[in-house]
């Protein structure tokens, strides 16, 4: 684990395309825009330090910052009920996302968790092992700064992924064990979702077309079957052939198993025959690990992987519709970080965040901020300080069935995540655009989202005075209330921190009218006025779409 990390350090200092951006000092709004891509939300405290050192040095510093771990051994035995464990994992996520200093790593972990999806939403096994889920998330955070092939192997061998997509316990076909065929689930999804995708791609992420103008499949059912054979023989750490056999009759074979250590191979159950995978020969007689390494290398080296992964990371961090040129620039870094390093994730992340297209303010597209980010950005902007105690070590909380905002970390409806990277409402699709997060914009979820945002922004400042349930922290407006008599200054500050300077004259005019109305007709208190203005901003389309 140590050696590749050192290499990452080296690669991270490589000069990248947009280094000139560091020469000029960034404006506050530019810094906020960058931080909205790279963290869980900008704070005033972040702005000056970043300005001083520039984006590239900030990223390097973030890479060196110690990882804030979600997995907490002490919590393993704490809860007996499954629902409590899920809630606890959630509280850890919110607390870490709000308070950890390794913001870039945490943000990348979320992005990766929406590509390498595991979910306890429909899996009893995963719900029984929330500590393993926390550890899986940490694995994404750790390997998110390694090389892609290392990330892919760590994900593939994690017992949580093993359970979710059924590589754990995957046996060779055999007349002895009555098994007609190895399980194909992981074999299929590791190709379709985690590496090469369904159709052949150009380096810029656009599909290759045949002479008739049709897309070209990347793999066949035969490749899936062969890869399923390659990926046989893996199980939980601590299981041998005898135990494997005994586990087969159990209703909950996962009970008491190790969901932290990487899976191990039991060679008896590995299909040792020769295989042909994506046109390449895999010889007979290899171990389970040799076979896996060879197959993952084939996927890693496949020409689709660089554009497929690069484009999705751009979509998760920066914008829904990157230009083909932007995808190509990032994919090229994926294939060669400048030191001939292939799949250097730090270099890829840096290429994404510092690209001219990510920084350009004349590009009016961006993306709809996903529900989780709309909450974290708000909490960080108006910093809520909650003290951890022995009874409540993870004080930040936001969820509950009745407060559903359409998203909870590691709880997507299926392996296809909360939204499809190709999803678009009809009018946008007609313009050739996608907008994945719009899949969560419907009558049910918008009402829930707006109600939660209203509760966060308004409650406690209205007549009721009561803190609402479902989240733990009230926004702090104290540094804004003195500005109520100079509403333009108030809006300047909110525009910078919440909207990275995107508030146009029309919007400003509307909000100024509101402030005026509140003051003159309703004689509202300064705190109430700030709360009402913030509420309007955060439910507005101008804010929700971040560009």
């Amino acid at each position, binding site marked *: 684990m140590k050696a590749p990390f050192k290499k990452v350090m080296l690669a991270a200092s490589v000069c990248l395309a947009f280094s000139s951006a560091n020469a000029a000092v960034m404006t506050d709004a530019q810094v906020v825009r960058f931080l909205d891509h790279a963290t869980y939300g900008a704070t005033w405290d972040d702005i000056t330090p970043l300005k001083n050192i520039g984006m590239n040095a900030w990223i390097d510093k973030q890479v060196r910052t110690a990882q804030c771990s979600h997995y907490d051994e002490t919590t393993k035995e704490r809860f007996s009920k499954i629902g409590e464990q899920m809630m606890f994992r959630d509280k850890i996520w919110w607390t870490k996302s709000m308070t950890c200093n390794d913001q870039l790593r945490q943000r990348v972990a979320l992005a990766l968790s929406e590509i390498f999806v595991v979910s306890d939403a429909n899996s009893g096994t995963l719900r029984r092992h929330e500590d393993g889920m926390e550890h899986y998330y940490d694995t994404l955070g750790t390997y998110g700064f390694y090389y892609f092939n290392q990330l892919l192997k760590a994900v593939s061998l994690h017992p949580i992924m093993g359970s979710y997509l059924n590589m754990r316990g995957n046996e060779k076909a055999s007349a002895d064990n009555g098994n007609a065929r190895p399980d194909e689930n992981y074999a299929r999804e590791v190709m379709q979702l985690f590496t090469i995708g369904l159709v052949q791609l150009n380096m810029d992420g656009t599909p290759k077309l045949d002479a008739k103008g049709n897309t070209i499949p990347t793999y066949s059912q035969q490749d899936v079957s062969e890869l399923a054979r390659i990926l046989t023989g893996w199980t939980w750490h601590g299981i041998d052939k005898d135990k494997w056999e005994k586990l087969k009759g159990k209703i909950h074979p996962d009970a008491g198993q190790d969901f932290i250590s990487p899976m191990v191979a039991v060679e008896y159950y590995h299909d040792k025959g020769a295989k042909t995978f994506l046109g390449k020969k895999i010889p007979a007689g290899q171990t389970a690990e040799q076979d896996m390494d060879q197959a993952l290398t084939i996927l890693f080296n496949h020409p689709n992987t660089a554009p497929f992964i690069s484009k999705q990371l751009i979509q998760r961090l920066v914008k829904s519709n990157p230009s083909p040129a932007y995808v190509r620039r990032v994919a090229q870094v994926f294939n060669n970080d400048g030191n001939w390093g292939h799949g250097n994730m730090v270099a890829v992340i840096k290429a994404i965040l510092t690209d001219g297209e990510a920084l350009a303010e004349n590009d009016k597209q961006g993306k709809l901020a996903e529900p989780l980010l709309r909450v974290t950005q708000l909490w960080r902007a108006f910093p809520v300080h909650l003290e951890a105690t022995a009874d409540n070590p993870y004080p930040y909380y936001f969820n509950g069935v009745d407060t559903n905002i359409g998203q909870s970390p590691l709880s997507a409806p299926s392996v296809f995540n909360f939204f499809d990277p190709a999803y678009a409402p*009809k009018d946008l699709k007609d313009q050739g655009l996608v907008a994945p997060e719009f899949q969560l914009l419907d009558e049910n979820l918008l009402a829930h989202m707006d109600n939660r945002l209203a509760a966060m922004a308004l409650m406690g400042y209205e007549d009721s005075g009561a803190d609402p349930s479902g989240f733990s922290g009230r926004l702090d407006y104290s540094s804004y209330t003195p500005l109520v008599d100079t509403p333009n200054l108030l809006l300047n500050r909110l525009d910078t921190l919440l909207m990275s300077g995107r508030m146009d004259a029309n919007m400003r005019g509307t909000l100024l009218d509101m402030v005026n109305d509140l003051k003159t007709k309703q004689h509202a208190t300064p705190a109430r006025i700030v709360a009402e203005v913030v509420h309007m901003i955060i439910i507005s389309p*101008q804010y929700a779409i971040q560009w």
Partner: protein
Amino acid sequence: MKRRDFLKQALAGTIGMGLATPASILGQFTLARSAMASSQASFTDHKALVCIYLGGGNDSLNMVIPTDATYSTYAKAKKSLAVAKSDLLPIVPLRSNTYAVGLNGTKVDGSPILTGMQNLFSKKGQLGIIANVGTLRQPTYKKDIGNLAALPPQLFSHSDQTAHWMRGSLDISQSSGWAGRMADMIADTASISMNFSINGTNLLQTGLTTPFVLGNNGVTDFTALQKGSLRQQTLDRLLHQAESMNNPLVAEYAKSAEKIQANVAFVKGVLDKAPTSGIAVPTDNPLATQLSYVAQLISQHQALGQNRQCFFVKLNGWDTHDNQIDEHPALLKQLDDALWYFYRRMIELKKLNSVATFTMSEFGRTLTANSDGTDHGWGGHHIVMGGAVNGGDIYGALPDLTLNGPNDFGDGRMIPTTSADQMNATLLRWFGLTDSQVKELFPNLANFNAYNLGFMNA
């Protein structure tokens, strides 16, 4: 050009123009909407379709199972996952169909599952089975499976096969589903789509409009935005300003938010007046909960101004690669309980004959087992329930379950003998669409002889 089409284009043009003269455009909007609504007058009776989506791919070869000598063919392939012969609930179709079958009657919590379906099929005649249905471009036989151009793209992939079922075509560039395009065709109510989803947005119900989406708690109001309040007035201004901005995502969000707020207020108001039911919703059954909202919306179709309604509900978890012996019967039980509940609700509302409920699932699963589960297949059996169903019968040919036999793509992935489009077209003919409308929605129907399978009575 038909009048409605003209209005639709005029309306689309209006939106594209931005907000130069808001008042006059709003006037045109209202005019266009009411004109579209009037075309629904062609239906004087009420009918509803309810799609139950079984997400992940139902192993329906373990739902409808041979009971005669063919059982040994099934059991030989299914191995440890085979349902014991003694656990099968016999059903007797009106017409014999290849081999005798029964329903999975595995015991969960001491009682056999699928007794509701058995009852509805055999005693009530309210349930029919459509055998071995799947996505198809044309009639497809074993000799064709090497010819990619003849097959639906990306067989065995969840996302692609789901989309094929929902689109009603194999044109992957098409961004609408057949229920969405149907809503466009028969231009439903003035304010909201005829399509409702109780489980998020979906391709099936997306056309020029998207479905109205309810959550697990029904319709949720915008609690902080009272009509006429300063907040609502301010938000309205912000939305109008956003709609004319040159960022297409901002404009789209604004347009959606505006529509959603209006729709929520309207539907919430209507549902608050829905009668209470004397039939308890089965507990711990998300599918039944979703169907309870469907029943409410059906009961209020007049207040909603809808003579035609289409609903989408969904139960996930059917992707049983592992631990199938435990998980699949539990899912089937949920389905069975939910169907029986909904059947009783429809009797209560006196809507049995005007509501057809059907299953959809991206694919069946392999007849063969991978140790303790099954993998992605192709054809699968589906069910249709309702008073208008010619129930108690099996439609289409039951597949030959011989491994490597004439229906086997490989590993017991059944080559469908009936296309999804045929099944769905049959439902839509009953629903009131014309031959030509159905052909327009399902272009590949032209490759098949029959596009009305006869399981719905006229």
